[in-house]
């Protein structure tokens, strides 16, 4: 399985938030698909990954349309305000958002499979040890299009796990809460989607 090696070879230039989003997503997709075509991932997953990337792009387009990039500030008040505005606008633009909009059942199944393969692989023990040492969070009720719970720490996501999942643009992150995998929007603090029970 050469996918992790391939992923480490990918160079991601530091780019502006929105200007780079769609370009980056397309680039990542273009890099990811040849890996699959080269036999590093089952061909049957190709459509699933492409569907995932398209849904990500749709979300990023909506995000871009709703909000200018958050700007650095020396004022914590201003930072809180712009994040609040960003969250409100995205929530309003996705009033019917629900679990599975991005992690559709086939995509969620693909992610669960990738995670299971990774956790059973040669790095599995190290990943589990890292998760155990990173202040693991309990399973709690989380909702799509809601804010990440106030005061809840951000458990680190093991790097080897990230290498085996489809890459994300810098606005979004995979986060782990208990056994749930989240798709997290950094700038708004919103949970974009989630897969309960993803971390077996």
């Amino acid at each position: 399985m050469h996918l992790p090696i391939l992923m480490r070879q990918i160079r991601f230039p530091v780019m502006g938030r929105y200007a780079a989003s769609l370009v980056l997503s397309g680039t990542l997709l273009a890099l990811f698909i040849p890996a699959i075509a080269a036999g590093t991932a089952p061909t049957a997953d190709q459509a699933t990954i492409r569907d995932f990337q398209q849904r990500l792009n749709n979300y990023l387009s909506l995000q871009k349309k709703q909000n200018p990039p958050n700007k650095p500030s020396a004022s914590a008040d201003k930072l809180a305000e712009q994040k609040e505005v960003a969250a409100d606008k995205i929530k309003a633009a996705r009033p019917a958002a629900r679990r599975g909009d991005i992690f559709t059942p086939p995509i969620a199944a693909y992610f669960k499979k990738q995670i299971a393969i990774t956790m059973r692989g040669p790095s599995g023990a190290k990943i589990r040890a890292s998760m155990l040492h990173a202040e693991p969070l309990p399973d709690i009720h989380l909702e799509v299009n809601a804010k990440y719970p106030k005061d809840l720490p951000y458990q680190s996501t093991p790097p080897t796990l990230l290498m085996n999942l489809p890459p994300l643009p810098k606005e979004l992150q995979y986060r782990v809460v208990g056994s749930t995998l989240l798709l997290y929007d950094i700038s708004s603090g919103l949970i974009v989607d989630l897969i309960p029970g993803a971390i077996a």
Partner: protein
Amino acid sequence: MKRERYSVLALLTGLSVIFALGFPAFDGTFATARSSTPAPALAQTAAAPKVDVRIPLQDKSVRFAVIGDSGTGEREQYDVARLMEAYRQAVKFDFVIMLGDNIYGSHSPRDFVDKFEKPYQPLLDAGVKFYASLGNHDDPNDERLYKPFNMGGERYYTFRKGDVAFFALDSNYMDPAQLSWLDQNLKSSQAKWRICFFHHPFYNEGRHHGADVDLRTQVLPLFERYAVNAVFSGHEHVYERMKPANGIYYFVLGNSGQLMKHDFRSAGERLKGFDTDQSFMLIEIAGDKLFFQTIARGGETIDSGELPRNGVSVGAR
């Protein structure tokens, strides 16, 4: 190496001392929110901390302070901050690196005041710059954009001071993009010294957390390939100086606000440890030597020494 030791009594008055509620470390349950922690209510005339400088203060050296897991907003954080200011007056360090967990609990505007701006106000007023890295209690949006943390809007970044290049990493989310960035920037660095700092330690012998072995597996090969000299991490709420490995020195400093008392497992890779009070570090880099001094909240120096670049410790005590 000429080593000067002298003491200075620095008078600090009017420094506010916070009396906050307890703030337990996250232990599998949610840490109690402290967003309502009142700002320091009483202004006290602080006793002048005694300063005992054990770094040489050479001309044109790079001097900085190190804090980790600092942002509790509690009295102990303020005590350490007051001591830092006393040492700044003697040492003239002009920047501080932060090893993550810079703001615990909620991230309301009030929290930024109580857990950062207020305790370090004398340092900020003196023009000291803070360079933050993100811990698991830090908000990746709010803090990377918070100008006083000097992160330039990024989760990971680099900056240079004299002969020293610093790499602030986000160990919460070491994705392929960050690994690639690190590879490129370490490779292209022309600095004599390369120092990396981030939250989760590669090595530590605390009971509470322990080492992040997956992070180490992915990142350490880059450090070794590009001859990183020293690594500073937090997360474990103690101070540890670990055995150097392949020319890299490892420090854990996660007790500048938080503290996990009597947290140590038996020492195997640990050369020096301190787990009974808060502390901070002073670093001076001059030529081919790194001088360090670790100072406890009570003022006593708990560790100090000098370390050669890409070599074995010769002077640590």
